[in-house]
């Protein structure tokens, strides 16, 4: 295809796409006018029904908790796949020494890692009170460990994230979520139906079993990201060694 034909094709399809987009945007509700019935119902129902102030958490860990279970296992399975493939190829554990970085990077990394850890725990713990929760907080927690590596503290990173502990945390998180659902059934309600005392809205002791699902998710997601990062890092190390 010549450049001229390609440009013509682009001009034609871009005009068509642009026209369709404009047409669709003209049909959108006016700016600031929300017209979703589901959202309104949830906003009205969730706080009195579940004693949570973050309705998103009530949706994710309660009203559609089963979907979240599926999402969690998607992450679990893909990370397991990565670990299985890479560990199989790599074989033995790689021992690697700290590499000297610039003092500024070192200082910022070491100073921010504990800070990030606290922020991660905060985002997890307050998931059903303020925006956040297990998914987001879990990634922040994993980033705190990754920051240790960035600061040049490879040995500290590996010592804080031994393979068995990370594997165990990931399995416990994913399994724990499923177990909370089974507990609901044992208590005589539907799978993943909320149970336990609902507590006072706006405090950490609220939301019933949402709190358990939240923590299980944080464990799973945090460990999954640490595992993913570690596996890729070890892979880099192997390629460095073989490549010289």
């Amino acid at each position, binding site marked *: 295809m010549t450049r001229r034909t390609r440009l013509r094709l682009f001009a034609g399809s871009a005009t068509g796409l642009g026209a369709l987009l404009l047409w669709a945007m003209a049909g959108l509700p006016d*700016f600031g006018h929300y017209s979703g019935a589901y959202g309104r119902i949830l906003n009205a129902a969730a706080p009195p029904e579940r004693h949570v102030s*973050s309705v*998103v958490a009530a949706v994710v860990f309660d009203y559609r908790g089963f979907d979240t279970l599926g999402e969690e296992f998607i992450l679990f399975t893909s990370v397991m796949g990565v670990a299985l493939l890479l560990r199989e190829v790599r074989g033995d554990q790689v021992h690697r020494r700290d590499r000297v970085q610039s003092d500024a990077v070192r200082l910022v990394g070491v100073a921010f890692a504990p800070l990030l850890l606290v922020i991660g725990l905060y*985002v997890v713990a307050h998931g059903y009170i*303020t*925006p*956040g*929760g297990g*998914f*987001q907080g879990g*990634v*922040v927690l994993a*980033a705190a460990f*990754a920051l240790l590596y960035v600061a040049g503290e490879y040995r500290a990173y590996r010592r804080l994230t031994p393979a068995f502990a990370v594997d165990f945390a990931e399995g416990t998180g994913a399994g724990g979520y499923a177990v909370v659902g089974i507990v609901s059934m044992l208590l005589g309600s539907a799978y993943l139906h909320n149970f336990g005392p609902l507590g006072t809205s706006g405090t950490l002791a609220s939301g019933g079993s949402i709190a358990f699902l939240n923590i299980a998710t944080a464990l799973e997601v945090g460990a999954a*990201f640490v595992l*993913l*990062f570690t596996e*890729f*890092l070890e*892979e*880099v190390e192997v*390629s*460095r060694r073989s*490549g010289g």
Partner: protein
Amino acid sequence: MIPLQAAAILLVALGATAVVLTRDLVRLALLSSVYALLLVVLFLVFQAPDVAISELVVGAIGFPLVIGVAIVLQRGG
């Protein structure tokens, strides 16, 4: 639409263009992270804090991290 929201949309549009026009991989990783931060601001001024936090952790932490490692791997260490 308040001026803050208009400014956020404009910044996201500029950021997206910059991401598309960048060819160097390392710059792309950094720039996509900055672009994610712009999206976070956009979601925040449109009152979607939950989406903002999700975008923050995936776009500004998770994605650049994996891309960074991938670049090192691709360059053979």
